[in-house]
């Protein structure tokens, strides 16, 4: 049973990943990524990591993907330039790099021989135990992530604000200061 679920979820994850990189329309790419994330959540459940699977669906499929779809909708369905513009060496180098990584990983995994799972309790992936780790052993990492998210939120606001509309030219400002001084001087002379 677990093998069947593993096979279906893995095949779906890989097919969706191919759809993400091959689709011309970014909207369909984003939907395919949603399928990829859901398949990975299934694999997480198979690995008894229930809380990570739930967080995957809520954080990724819920929040992050909605943000992606908002930006895609904002930019509009703008496709890439036709492939005739593309330089062939880019395709060759990219394929070689991806293939090299794949071969390397396959070699290492084939020799690892890590196939016997440790016995774990039923609450291996429960929110309670994982949350406890976050607030005890890994509290530093937890705080760093919250700080990082705050910085990212501020960065998004700054980036989204764009060029400032009310910028006074520096020369203009100096001229005004000069005028005000002259006015004050003429008044005190009177």
């Amino acid at each position, binding site marked *: 049973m677990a093998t069947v679920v*593993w096979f279906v979820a893995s095949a779906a994850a890989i097919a969706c990943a191919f759809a993400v990189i091959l689709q011309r329309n970014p909207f369909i790419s984003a939907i395919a990524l949603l399928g990829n994330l859901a398949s990975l959540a299934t694999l997480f459940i*198979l690995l008894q990591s229930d809380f990570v699977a739930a967080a995957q669906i809520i954080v990724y499929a819920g929040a992050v993907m909605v943000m992606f779809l908002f930006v895609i909708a904002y930019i509009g369905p703008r496709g*890439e330039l036709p492939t005739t513009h*593309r330089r062939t060496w880019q395709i060759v180098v990219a394929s070689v790099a991806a293939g090299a990584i794949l071969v390397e990983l396959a070699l290492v995994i084939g020799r690892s021989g890590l196939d016997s799972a440790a016995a774990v309790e039923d609450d291996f992936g429960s929110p309670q135990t994982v949350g406890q780790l976050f607030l005890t052993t890994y509290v530093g990492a937890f705080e760093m992530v919250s700080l990082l998210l705050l910085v990212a939120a501020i*960065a998004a606001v700054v980036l989204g604000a764009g060029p400032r509309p009310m910028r006074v030219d520096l020369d203009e400002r100096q001229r005004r200061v000069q005028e005000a001084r002259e006015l004050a001087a003429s008044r005190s002379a009177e």
Partner: protein
Amino acid sequence: MTPGLGSYLIVSGLLFAIGLAGVLLRRSPLVVLLSLEVMLNSVNLSLVGFGRYNGSRDGQVFALVVMGVAAAEVVVGLGLIVAMERRKMALDTDELVELSG
């Protein structure tokens, strides 16, 4: 019979390679970000898998931290794309070469 650690790692490696090909091949910054998500998630799968097979919860904690970092990265990346769009710049990674020395 349940699938062993090797089978999860192979799926993870395959997804990582597919994501890398997407990052290198696609020219729309949006799709590059989407491919980057595929790569980050493949690494999450191996982290959780290793954690499960060592009977340790540290892998899950690491995977959740990676999720937080990925969310921050997406926020900044999408902010940059929106800023580019507002300045009427071409949304094409081959055109954005002003910083190349």
